[in-house]
């Protein structure tokens, strides 16, 4: 059990470093999403089911939706700008 938990924790750290180093924003967001999900699994191990449910719904769900919406709007603006004027 401890080994599995340790692996999950190492996975979290790798995810956190990867977010800082990836070049593509959407990759960073997906990595962050998996980070949140693994975090909620860790919380199940720590006997905190309330947190696990909330983190899965709010942390992984809502936060990721917000990030993707923001990214979508940024992409829309990017194509809009490129079409408009070459600044």
């Amino acid at each position, binding site marked *: 059990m401890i080994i599995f938990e340790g692996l999950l924790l190492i996975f979290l750290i790798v995810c956190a470093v990867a977010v800082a180093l990836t070049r593509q924003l959407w990759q960073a967001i997906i990595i962050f999403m998996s980070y949140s999900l693994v975090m909620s699994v*860790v919380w199940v191990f*720590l006997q905190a089911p309330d947190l696990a449910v909330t983190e899965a719904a709010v942390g992984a769900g809502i936060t990721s939706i917000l990030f993707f919406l923001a990214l979508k709007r940024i992409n829309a603006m990017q194509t809009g700008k490129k079409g408009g004027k070459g600044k």
Partner: protein
Amino acid sequence: MMEFHLFTNYVEIAAVILFSIGFSTLLFHQNLMKKIIGFNIMDTAIFLFLAAKGYIAGRMAPILVEGANDPSLYINPVPSALVLTGIVVSVSVTAFALALVLRLYERYGTLHLDEILYLTRGEHD
């Protein structure tokens, strides 16, 4: 009586490493979206730390089973309550920060904080 726990606190060690990574991403990364993700990592790391501090090996989650209310059966419910509050706070802050970033992108067409600062320099008299 001081004790020195090198590897017993392994969850806390992971939590503070994650905290430092998130903190550094928020402080030093130039991309605003990455900064916000860094902030989220920093906050979840603190929540992991708190959850670890509430955990007591061999005990159950604080949902009473059949009315048994012996404190030595359940883990500490307070950290869970604090973290629940914290998660919602961090989502709210994320939404606000993303809205600001969108506003900035609309105006300057970049997510790079240095570039934005360079572009604003000419604006104020």
